[in-house]
Structures are given as structure tokens and as C-alpha cells.
């Protein structure tokens, strides 16, 4: 027997999942996080999990880790003492960014200061031009004095970013070599190793970010490794990346900016896995927690990637999934604005003091308070009743702060709060889909997080989505996704050229180079086998500023076919094509994916209760009426069982609401499938 284990480190809890591919068994475990040293909770959690599952540490095949170390290092400015060396005349690129400001109207909001202050951004005479030719060689004397300055300053990490290094990285590489030789203890990070895309600010920013985090990440992963060894766990550790694939711990440290979405990526992979199980190629994942709502899209079995990513206002060029986040969650505060309209969020009561019903000093009405007042949450529905909710307080704050102004009943006010927050979440999903030319009606919605399944079908109906699938354990969906993930590497190269000036053989050669690089990235792991390669070309009409990715079929490249596929896709997204115009290649993208070992989850074989446990009943306020509603315990449901709405399904970390007229079924994977929803 051999099992795989996933560990998802969150702010409050560290979630763990053990998967036994032979039996399809999943075991869940949760321990409090230890933010000062996240490796402690990780190792304690793993020990607890194997105990609970009754397996020995020797039976662990490997571990997969979703970590927030890179993200937190940046958000908390706890990185290494970092310097940056750039082309003479350009040290302020990191300061000016793209010269715009973060908010059009709020004059108080400032840009995020660069991770490296101006005094530690050094200039070096050297110059490469846009065609890769050398206009000026590196000034070696100056480089020598920079080495001395870095040593003097006690620099722990240095980024090197020169203009046009995405075309020819020669200067960066030779400067990097000098630095590594002279400063063997210092982390050296080249912008061309981080990204081969055009645009100096974004590439330099990525480079500096990686340099800043790399020593911290390296230390952390070493600590984890030592602690696992001490616990006699010798299985290899993989780390989740922002692209939805995992990589070796070593690669994760060297390219730590690739792990920025390591935490939330798991949830999206869970959605992808659910889509695969149910043969649903198009999935929208919606993670609703206490303060934020994260949505992502899987289209034609591929996770949608972000074009321009940033973290904390700093640009980041790394292959990463497109997770669109808005400030909407159970803690979002409802208020009446100066025009008399009901608004919800973006202010949140957070975890402390939390919603008014937590009884921890919160005095503002929140979404959770509204759900409680409407009977959709029960007073003992959080953490299996460990936290008791105070519905009297929830009623009172909604009455005083909302119902009184709107001159309506408390229930009407509470239902209004839910409708308004649902509208914000719907708008977020529309931004991700409709604005990019995707029709949400072709998707399945997978809601998770503590609050997602409570709002899931309402969002789906508003968007015209017909089917909703609630995962087995919505509160730990990210960890569940980790356990089913594969090794993956993405390589992207900017190459701007008119398609009709590009020979098929040149095109092939570039793809081949990228493929070799991507496969090389995977070879650092202990997994064997042949990776699955997928290739894409970013195209646009010459003169446009945004490219559309077009999948390349296997086999020899057919540029004419590629061009006509682009016209079609442009027409699909924007309603017109310009077939008389020349088409331009902008970039090539190759991804390599390798299954670590049998990671598919088969249908569960487990003991099921002979007879379904009968539901209890409670009144729930739905569309203006109190309706006597069946309340089910999720652990007592068995596959094949049908539940007609109205119904509530409660479990340890989440509550699912089935509206009147909706029909839910429990499938072979113990997921709740609510299919055939109709528009309002």
C-alpha cells in the first residue's frame, strides 16, 4: 500500500488530505497553523493524519504542499536584504512602474514601493538592443566596484535585470557569473531566468521579487525537509505552483515567484479534477470564505491563465492561473449609502471581531448574520457546533442598521443583503467569463469554502448555469486538489513577428527549444515517464495590443491553419474578424505535464449506512416566506440518494442550500450534484 498526502497551509488552519489510490479512500485532517514556523504544523499534521488513517510513515509515496511562504514574505516585507543591478540610466524603472496610479479617484492611495530601495538599485554601463545586438559591452571595472559595494552592504540576494535580456540574455548571464563567483553566499537571480517576455518593468519586478524571497523559501523548505526526516518521513516533497502543477522542492525555492498562488491553486485543481471525473470540460470554481471570494475558470479542460498578474501592487510575470478575487465573504458588512441604497462590502468584519453573531464584539451586520437570521445557517453550524452563533444579536444589528432605514422587516433586509452580495459575486464571475468571450451557461459551477455552497445555486441561476457540484469536503477543497495534482512546467517566449514572414521550420524550431526546456524542468523530480506536451501560440492582428492564445494541434505546425483558427476565435470573442489583415505572432507557450503516479480518484468503496438517516426540520426564509425545510447531515448521506429542495445539508465545515424546485443527488464520489437549474 502506498498513499499520497497533501498539506495546505492556511492562515488559521493547516488542512491535510491522505489519498489511497488503491481503494479510493480519502482521509481529512485539520490542525491549527503555526505562522511563526509553518513547518511545525505541517509535520504535526502529517503525523496526526497517518495515525488517523492507520498507515505507517514508510507507506507515504510522496507529499504535496501548498504554501503561503512566498506570498507572506512579500506581503509582510520579510524578505532578504536585496539589491538590484540594471542597465545604466534605468534604475527608476522599478519605482515608476508603468507611471499610472492604483486608483483613478482616490488621491490617498499610493503605489507599492519597490522591494529594493533606490539606494540599493545600481546601474551598470552595458546595452543590448531589441534585435539582440550589443550596443555597448559590460563595463567590467564598474561591475567589480559593484561587487565591492554589495559585499560592503551585506547584501543577501541580488537581482540582475538588463534591457532586452528576453531576446539575448548574454549580458545578464555573464554579469551573473561574475557575481556568483565573487559572492558565493549571495543569491543571484537573473531576469531572463524568470521570464522571457517583453516589458522591462514586469520582468525586473519579477526578478527582484524572486531574489527577495528565494533565501527565505530555501530556508523554509530545508526546515520542512529536516523535520520530516526527523519524523522518519523520507518521501519526496513536491510544492504546488501558481500554474496548477507541482514541482520539486529545489525548483520551488529557485523559482519561488512561481508559488505565489500555491495556496489557492489547489482549489482550482480540485475543480479541474471534479470536471474530469464527471466529464465536464468547463468548470468555474468559486471559493467563498470569510473575507474574500476567489473565482477561476477551467475551459475545455484547461485552467485559464492570467495575462498580467500582480501581487500587492507589484507586477509578476510567471505562468499563473487567473484567480479573480473580490472582497466578498461571510464577513462582508452591509451598509446604507448616502443615496439610500443597500450596499454590502468591501469592508469586512474579518475573523476578528467577525460577524455580530460570533458574539466577539462585532456590531456591524454581515452576510453570515443574514444567513443566520434567515435560518440558512443554524446556531451550531460552524465547526460542528464548537462555535455557537447568537441569532438574537444578528437580528438586532440587521434591524437597527438596515431594516430601519429600508423600512422593511428584518427578514426582508437579510434577504436583501444576500441578494446584493450575490450580485457582487455574480459580477466577478461575469468579469472572468463574459468579458473574455466565454458563455457561463456552458460551465458547471463548483462552489466551495465555508460559505460557497450556501450561495452556489443562487449564483448559478443568476448566470444561467444549469449544474452545480459541491465537493465532498468544501472547507478543505484546496488540500483535496493538491492531492490530485501533477508535475507541470510552462515556458513562454515572446517573439513578435508577422505570421507570413515566419517560416514553418523556424516556428517548429522555437517550439522544440521550449519543449526541451519544459521537459528539462520536470527531470529534476524523481518521477519517471513521458510528459504530455501542449503548445499554444499568442496571436493578434498586427497593430493590436492584446493577443489571443490559440492551441496548436500535435504534429507539424501548419501556419495557414493557425491563422484561420485565429480569425475564428477573434470573431467568436469580439464579433468580427479582419481576414484581409496580417496576423502577428506575439508569443509561444509550451507546457509539459507529467502524472506523478496514479492520481485519479476512482469511485469510493466504503461502508454506507443501510438506511438514510431521516432529516430534521427547521423553518428557513426563502423568497419572502418561512418554509419548513429538511436538514440533512452530510456524513449520513449515501451515493445515489436524491434530495428535493427546499433542503439544507450540513457538515463540519460548510452548509449547502437546496432551493425549492431544485433537485440534488449524491454521486458515486459522494459529491452533491444539483443539476438542471432554471433561470429565475
Amino acid at each position: 500500500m502506498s498513499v499520497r498526502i497533501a498539506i495546505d497551509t492556511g492562515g488559521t488552519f493547516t488542512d491535510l488530505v491522505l489519498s489511497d489510490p488503491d481503494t479510493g479512500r480519502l482521509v481529512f485532517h485539520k490542525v491549527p497553523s503555526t505562522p511563526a514556523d509553518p513547518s511545525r504544523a505541517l509535520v504535526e499534521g502529517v503525523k496526526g493524519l497517518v495515525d488517523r488513517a492507520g498507515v505507517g510513515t514508510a507507506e507515504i509515496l510522496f507529499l504535496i504542499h501548498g504554501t503561503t511562504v512566498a506570498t507572506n514574505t512579500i506581503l509582510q516585507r520579510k524578505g532578504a536584504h536585496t539589491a538590484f543591478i540594471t542597465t545604466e540610466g534605468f534604475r527608476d524603472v522599478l519605482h515608476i512602474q508603468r507611471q499610472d496610479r492604483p486608483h483613478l479617484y482616490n488621491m490617498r492611495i499610493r503605489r507599492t514601493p519597490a522591494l529594493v530601495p533606490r539606494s540599493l538599485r545600481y546601474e551598470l554601463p552595458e546595452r543590448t538592443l531589441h534585435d539582440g545586438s550589443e550596443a555597448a559591452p559590460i563595463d567590467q571595472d564598474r561591475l567589480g566596484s559593484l561587487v565591492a559595494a554589495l559585499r560592503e552592504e551585506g547584501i543577501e540576494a541580488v537581482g540582475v535585470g538588463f534591457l532586452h535580456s528576453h531576446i539575448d540574455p548574454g549580458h545578464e548571464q555573464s554579469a551573473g557569473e561574475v557575481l556568483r563567483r565573487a559572492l558565493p553566499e549571495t543569491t543571484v537571480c537573473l531576469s531572463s531566468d524568470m521570464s522571457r517576455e517583453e516589458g522591462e518593468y514586469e520582468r525586473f519586478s519579477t526578478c527582484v521579487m524572486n531574489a527577495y524571497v528565494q533565501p527565505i523559501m530555501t530556508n523554509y523548505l530545508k526546515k520542512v525537509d529536516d523535520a520530516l526526516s526527523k519524523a522518519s518521513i523520507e518521501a519526496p516533497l513536491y510544492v504546488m505552483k501558481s500554474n496548477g502543477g507541482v514541482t520539486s522542492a529545489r525548483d520551488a525555492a529557485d523559482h519561488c515567484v512561481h508559488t505565489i498562488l500555491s495556496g489557492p491553486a489547489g482549489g482550482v485543481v480540485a475543480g479541474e479534477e471534479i470536471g474530469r471525473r464527471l466529464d465536464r470540460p468547463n468548470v468555474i470554481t468559486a471559493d467563498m470564505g470569510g473575507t474574500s471570494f476567489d473565482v477561476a475558470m477551467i475551459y475545455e479542460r484547461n485552467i485559464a491563465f492570467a495575462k498580467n498578474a500582480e501581487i500587492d501592487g507589484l507586477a509578476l510575470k510567471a505562468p499563473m492561473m487567473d484567480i479573480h478575487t473580490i472582497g466578498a465573504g461571510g464577513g462582508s458588512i452591509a451598509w446604507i449609502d448616502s443615496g439610500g441604497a443597500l450596499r454590502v462590502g468591501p469592508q469586512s468584519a474579518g475573523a476578528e471581531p467577525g460577524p455580530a453573531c460570533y458574539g466577539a464584539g462585532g456590531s456591524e451586520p454581515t452576510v453570515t448574520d443574514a444567513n443566520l437570521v434567515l435560518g440558512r445557517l443554524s446556531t451550531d453550524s460552524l465547526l460542528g457546533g464548537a462555535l455557537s452563533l447568537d441569532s438574537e444579536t444578528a437580528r438586532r444589528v440587521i434591524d437597527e442598521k438596515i431594516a430601519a432605514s429600508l423600512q422593511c422587516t428584518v427578514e426582508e433586509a437579510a434577504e436583501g443583503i444576500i441578494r446584493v452580495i450575490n450580485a457582487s459575486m455574480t459580477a466577478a464571475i461575469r468579469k472572468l467569463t463574459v468579458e473574455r468571450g466565454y458563455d457561463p451557461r456552458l460551465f458547471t459551477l463548483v462552489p466551495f469554502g465555508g460559505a460557497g455552497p450556501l450561495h452556489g445555486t443562487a449564483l448559478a441561476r443568476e448566470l444561467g448555469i444549469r449544474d452545480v457540484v459541491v465537493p465532498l469536503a468544501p472547507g478543505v477543497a484546496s488540500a483535496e486538489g493538491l492531492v490530485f495534482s501533477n508535475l507541470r512546467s510552462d515556458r513562454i517566449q515572446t517573439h513578435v513577428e508577422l505570421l507570413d514572414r515566419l517560416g514553418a521550420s523556424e516556428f517548429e524550431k522555437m517550439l522544440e527549444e521550449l519543449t526541451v526546456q519544459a521537459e528539462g524542468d520536470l527531470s529534476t523530480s524523481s518521477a519517471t515517464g513521458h510528459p504530455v506536451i501542449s503548445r499554444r501560440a499568442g496571436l493578434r492582428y498586427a497593430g493590436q495590443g492584446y493577443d489571443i492564445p490559440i492551441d496548436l494541434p500535435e504534429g507539424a505546425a501548419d501556419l495557414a491553419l493557425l491563422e484561420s483558427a485565429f480569425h475564428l476565435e477573434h470573431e467568436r470573442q469580439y464579433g468580427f474578424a479582419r481576414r484581409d489583415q496580417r496576423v502577428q505572432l506575439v508569443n509561444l507557450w509550451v507546457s509539459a505535464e507529467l502524472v506523478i503516479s496514479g492520481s485519479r480518484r476512482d469511485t469510493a468503496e466504503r461502508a454506507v449506512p443501510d438506511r438514510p438517516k431521516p432529516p430534521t426540520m427547521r423553518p428557513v426564509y426563502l423568497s419572502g416566506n418561512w418554509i419548513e425545510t429538511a436538514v440533512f447531515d452530510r456524513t449520513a448521506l449515501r451515493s445515489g440518494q436524491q434530495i428535493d429542495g427546499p433542503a439544507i445539508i450540513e457538515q463540519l465545515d460548510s452548509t449547502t442550500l437546496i432551493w425549492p424546485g431544485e433537485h440534488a443527488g449524491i454521486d458515486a464520489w459522494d459529491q452533491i450534484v444539483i443539476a438542471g437549474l432554471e433561470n429565475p
Partner: protein
Amino acid sequence: MKTDPITLELMRNRWTGIAEEMCAALIRTSYSTNIKDRRDCSAAIVQPTGEILAQAESGVPLHLGVMPGVVKSILEVYPVSAMKPGDVYITNLPYPEGPGHLPDVSLVSAIFYENRAVALAASTAHHVDMGGFAPGSMPFGVTEIYQEGLQIPPLPIFKGGQLDEDIYKLINQNVRTQYEVRGDLMAQYACAQIGQQRVSELMSRESPEEVIHYMDEIQDYAERRMRAGIGTLPDGEYTFEDYLDDDGVTDTPVKIAVALTVSGDELRADFSGCSDQVLGPLNARLPAAASCISYVCKAVIDPDLPACAGAYRPLDIFAPEGSILQATYPAAIGNANILTDQRVVDVLMGALYQAAPDRVCAACSGEMNLVNIGGIDPASGEYYNYVETYAGGQGAMFDIDGEDGVHTHLTNTRNAPVEIMERTYPLRVERYGLIPDTEGPGRQRGGCGMMRELKCLGERTIITLGSDRRKFTPWGLEGGGNASGAHCYVIDNEGQVREIPTKAHTELYRDDVLRIETPGGGGWGDPAERVREKVEEDVRNELIGPERASGHYRWGKDQ
């Protein structure tokens, strides 16, 4: 029909969402750098009466006040009742009301549901060229709109979904960058199509009567928000004035003055004190001043104010006919957007300082530093045109420093990356960065200005520069000092440096270097009171030299 505040909020979000989606489609399919990179465009949903219901702006707030005039000028010639599905109307004519200058091209079309025009879709986008005296169609050295470029009065440009090739041929012949202009018109058409689709979907999902009912409710709601915001300002009359250096033709300074009257929940802005219209292209029409007021209300009163007609009901804006903000045809108008309007905002801030000192900032760079470079690209033999506005310093507020090298107030367009510029144009960027010692000193300091050096690689390069604040530098408040002003230099291919006017139309030759310096932002409060650690940090970062630190900031001296 009964109105409930919950449905009101839902409806408002839906309309905003549709306008945003229209604007996103326009940006993603456009060709002009101005639109695709710098997002100088906007899209709006308009009620059939001509009242803006929802507007999305991405890069610039300048279109906010202008859109009503655009729609009005089209509806006067082509009433909604005469519009058919697939018909789209165009105009770029600022007189009597319309877009702010000729490169801003607006398209308006009716949105139908069950054969009834339920709304209008409108968009404005800054096209790369509309012909005239110089590439980019915002020339200096001109005195009439005829010289600035092609004037397109309201005309049907698409009929039944087809581009009118006859009208298009006339446009095509008059613009330098035909390929882009056609592409951008198609992008604006795509924007209108998205509007039509989404509104149809909304109408068929909800009750059409309810949707229409709530259009008026949204206007009333926005009016209440604006009134509540104005109500937070103390009643009184607040005046302020500042000067533009010159009009680019004569040397006479141009006065911008306002008298703001707050009474209860209403606001009147009287620009009677401004200069008469001028010879150079700094003249504007009143809708531009309306944009400035709209912006300032959002910035000072409530950043979240809805962008719709109702919000502007409590505002009364006046400028006499024949004055710089209400110029008479055919006065040249091309650079009001980037110079005059930006200064109107500074002046409004100065006036509001007296009413709400903790909500305004000192003078920002006060202009947009337009750089327009065109000529024949030696590599391709084709005409190229590079246009960008350069950021400057932001004015300090009572408790925070201004940002360095950032776009302020009416513009928020992104820069052109060096790597893209050098690949696309026969230009080499030699330096790009902040200029030390250009901040307005203060307890809170203003932002530093910025410089860029560009080497021209073509044989003959035509330059248009549009900047200001060389003489009248950005002012500080409460004892804060003025920032440095704008300067432009040419370093010719023999190494000779000469300063050239900041408003200029000139030619450069192979290997000449153009150096642009932008103004900083004004300071706030006595610089001697600045926190010592902050002075030291600026000195360490070489943004403030030791001499300036010990002078203005009394650094290293007894306090």
C-alpha cells in the same frame, strides 16, 4: 411601480457591468497605442433621452463630462426615432458640443429590444491620427481647428451593420495611419455590439418595464449621493487662480480662475475670471470644464460617486462665450485636454483647499507632458507615429507625500515600455528616471518630476511637444514650496545642448537626442518640520541632494 433600494443597487451594478464590458472589448480589439496600451477611451450606456446612465472609464476621467455633449450633438441631427438596428453614428467635432479634440472619435448607436430603442451605446476613443498639420493631430503652431485635422460632423458611419465605405474613404484619405484608424473604428463597433447583446440579455431575463423604470431611479439615486457629498462642504464662496505659461503662439500667460459657490447641497463653478480665448490650441468648450468638476467631485467628495447624469444635476457650471473655456468656432482646441483642463483641476483643488483642506492636494505637475514623434521608419519605409504623455510629480496632501513620477488627476495612462518602443519605432531610449531635487519641499514633500532621453534614429523626425509650467511652477500649500517646472532640451548629434520651448513643433535629425523633463508636485507645510528620518531616506536615495536638504529642510541644522 414601487422602487426598492435593493433592486436599485442590483440594477445599478448591472448597468455599470455592461459599460465596463463594452470598454474592455474596445480596448482589447483596438490598434492605437492610445487605446490599447494607454486606455484613453470610455464607453457609456445612455438613456434614449440622452442622459448618461452608466459610464466606464479606464485610463482617463476626461470623458466623463464630455459624453453628454457628444450624445446631444448626434441626437440633434439623428433623433433616436430615426435610428435603425446596425446604424452607428460618428463625430469628432468639439463644436458646439462634442469630444474634447479631433483625435477623440465618438460613436453612438441605439440599442433595440423588441423593435424598440431602449438605450444608446456610446464610446469615445483617442485615435492615433486625424490628419492636419502634424502627426497625432494635436499640433502646436496652429491657430484654427481647420489646421488641426479632419473635422467629422455627426454622420452615419455604419448602416445596417456595414461600414459606409464612401464616408470611410474620405476619412481614410485624410489620416496618416489608415490601418489603425479603420481597426479602431471596428473596435468601437465591437463595443457597441457588446452593449446591444448585453442589454438584450438583461431585458429578456428581467421584466423590461422594471428595467426601464429603474433607469430613472438610478439617476435620482446618483443625485442624492452627489447632494449628500456637496452637503459635507461648508457653505461659502471660494476663489483661486493660476496661469498657464503661454498659448504656444504668443508669450502672454493664460489665466485660469474659478469662483466656487457651495450653498447647501448645490455647487456653482463660475469661470468668468478666465482669460479670453487664445490664438494657440489651448481653447476648450464648457463640457471639458464639466469633466474637470466631475473629476474633482469624485476625488474630493466621494471616489465612488456613480458616473451618470443624475449626479451632475446639483452642479451649475458657467464660462462666458469667447473665453478660454467656452471658445468660439473655429478656435484651435487640440491641447486643451492635456494642458488647460489639467490646470483647471489644480485651480479647483486650490479653491476647495479653503473649504476642505484635509481632502485636497497641492498642485500636481498640472499638465500631461505630451510627446508626439513621427516620421518615416527607415526600417520599413512606412509612416510611424509615437505618442505618449509623461508623468510628473504629485502634489502633497496634509498628511502624505506626493508620489514621484506618476500620472495625476485627469490622466492615468500607462507608459510605453522601453523594450516595446525600441522594437516598434526608430527611437532609442538613453535614460528614463526621476529627477532629484525637483520635488516641492514641505513637511510632506511633493513628488519628483521625471525625465526621458530619446535618440532619433530616422533621418528626419517631426516632434510635437505639449507641456507647461516652466514659468508658473506647481505651488505648495501651508508653507510648502513650489516644485521644479517642465523643460525640454535638444542635444544635437554634435553634442550641443539647447533648451527649446515646452510647446513646440520642431524637426530633429539622425542621432539628435530629445530630453524631456516633467514638473514635480507642490509641497505641504514647512519643510523644516519634515520628519528627519524621511529627509535622511530621501538623501540616501539621492532624490534630495545634501545641499537642498540642508537648505530647504534645515537638515543637520538646529531646529
